[in-house]
């Protein structure tokens, strides 16, 4: 796993989904699902997360 969401911080707002340039993210109710085959670890979702809940490593 390279894309991690801290669920104790996440609002499920979908901001990360909106900003991901590779459509790698999907919001399914209270889960942010990352398609690791599309993720390039660019970090845009990290900067755009209002809750600072995402880590990409």
């Amino acid at each position, binding site marked *: 796993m390279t894309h991690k969401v801290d669920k104790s911080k996440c*609002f*499920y*707002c*979908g*901001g990360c*989904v*909106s*900003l991901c*340039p590779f*459509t790698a993210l*999907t*919001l*399914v*109710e209270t889960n942010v699902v990352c398609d690791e085959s599309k993720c390039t670890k660019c970090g*845009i979702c990290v*900067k*755009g*997360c*209002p*809750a*600072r809940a995402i880590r990409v490593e």
Partner: protein
Amino acid sequence: MAEHYDAIVIGCGPGGSFFAKTAAKKGMNVVVLEKKKDLGSPVRCGEGIATQWDASYGLPLNEKSIAMKIDAAMAIAPNGTTFKMGGEGAVVERKIFDKFLAIDAARAGAHILPKTLVTDLVRENGKIVGVKAKRFGEEIEFRAPLVVSAEGMENTIARKAGMKVQHTLYDTDVCYEYEMANVPCEPIIELFFGNRISPRGYVWIFPKAKDVANVGIGVGGETGADPKALLDAFIRERPERFKHAEIIEVKGGDISVGASSEQLVQDNFMVIGTAAHMVDPIHGGGMGLAITAGKIAAEVAAEAHERKDYSRDALVRYEKEWHAGEGATMLKRLKLRKTMEGLSDDDLNFIFENVDGKDAGKLMDGDFKPIVARLLIKRPSLLKVVKSLM
């Protein structure tokens, strides 16, 4: 097995519902697919809306969805200087507002399907003919000659359709908000500006009762600023206002603050509302614009439906009307936003001391020159920042 409709709308926010209501009234068989089980939730905005839509859109704001009626907005400079702008509006309860609009659409004959996640488009010979969705563990195909993206910020399907609607960090504000009790409020929307308070954004206090308010912040996505830390600091620095405040809800989200997308239609496909970046670049409001877009798009869609022609040519009137109207206003406000980005807190203080609500109204309408000229006489050093407005 596929279900067949005249139009499929993705997303049951204000834009999607209003499109569905308008199109259904004109005789179209419309289905709205909403990925969540609850409408209007989680709340991702300040919940403020101007109420001019009431009359012109046959949208009697349901009394239950109004938390508080507003009669003015007050802008506050870093040093506390203020000016007031008149204007009627309301702070709504999104969870009720959105549901009421969906009920309105259903009463008009539209079908609403919550908990239905659209996963992809269906194409035949390259042509969009419907969408694939997941609903209660089942894969369902919906077929229609027209697919409408009202997806909001998460415009994944519009992007898959080939529309250029990708959001960027530069044109996005990252927002964090508390709904707070025991905060004394007037029926006025308050907007606090300043680079220290909120880089490339503002802090807002939107009243929902005389002692309840949405207290939120939006910061420029590219600034890297932490909205929660800044909002907490704003509250901490105002103990007289917030000494008894209790946080009763935490909200947040990202919002577009750029121009609306250039291309809004292609063959068998339309995009409306926040999915097409239809959000005011200055105040970040999107509900009214989404409703406006939904109405125009549905009227054009109904004409296309009558002629059984869903080509780009048949749908393009919506795109043209948008860019001639609200889209053009948004571009002027984007110019203003970009200019404000270059202002220091000292410049902001100076400007607030030298403009009133009437001037601000003119600036919001794109009538920059007379006011900018007046400011430049007093402070010529502003020229390098404001020259794009001349």
